[in-house]
């Protein structure tokens, strides 16, 4: 097993543990698009834990920039492509009710049929797009 496999598995386990902590403390699904999207208008009343979770996520980014900046990879696409990607990810995750975390981790764990369908679809269109756009 190469080190990237071990890091992938270990990082994944830590993501799972973080999702467990959010469920235990706040009874919420750790779906990043939902946590962030619900901070935008129309504003919810339960902003506290959402802001704290996103701030924690950001803290991980800040820490990485200080300790291991190379772990944040540069884009392999043009700025225009990155903007288009962001727009599609924002719109799509809110329309489809989740992303890799909410549907992928939490939804599949709950054996949700909606999440299973969503994951199958976004994996397929993701793979198709990556192949059409090319590896570089």
């Amino acid at each position: 097993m190469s080190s990237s496999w071990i890091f992938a598995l270990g990082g994944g386990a830590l993501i799972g543990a973080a999702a467990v902590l959010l469920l235990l403390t706040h009874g919420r699904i750790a779906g990043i698009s939902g946590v962030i999207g619900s901070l935008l208008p129309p504003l919810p009343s339960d902003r506290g834990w959402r802001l704290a979770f996103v701030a924690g996520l950001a803290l991980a980014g800040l820490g990485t920039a200080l300790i291991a900046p190379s772990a944040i990879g540069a884009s392999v696409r043009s700025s225009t492509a990155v903007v288009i990607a962001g727009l599609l990810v924002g719109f799509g995750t809110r329309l489809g009710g989740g992303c890799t975390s909410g549907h992928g981790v939490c939804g599949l764990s709950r054996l949700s049929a909606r999440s299973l369908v969503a994951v199958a679809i976004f994996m397929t269109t993701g793979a198709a797009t990556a192949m059409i756009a090319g590896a570089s």
Partner: protein
Amino acid sequence: MSTSFVCGGLRCRVMSIVLAGLAGTAFGVGLVLSGMTTPAKVIGFLDLRGAWDPSLGLVMAGAIAVYAPLSRVIRRARRQPWFDGTFHLPTRRDLDGKLAVGAAIFGIGWGLGGLCPGPGVVAAAAGSETGLLFVAAMLVGMLAQHGWVRR
């Protein structure tokens, strides 16, 4: 049944915020360790041709291996989470067009940029230009969808 409480006091409210923040940080560190914040790696995982890198499949596997059993234990053992009166879990079971179209659009964006929402936020907070650009566009996309729904 273990004891449950919904907090009113300051100490409890602070704890609830600190633990939500800790969950976010652990989530973010997991994303970084696993390689999800490296767009080239994500695209190498999604691009099945040539030197396919399947390692990122283990991220979801590792997360589910932890979350699936422990979330069940929590749901069985507790009537409510520590800091809320109830669990807020999705109840919908129907498959609809919005789910399919939304997932398809998300996948296209993910395959194009190599970033999904969590890694995007982590990269932006790390000061990555790509991350900042991606998250700004993502928020616009989310707002557009919210407006589109209300219309």
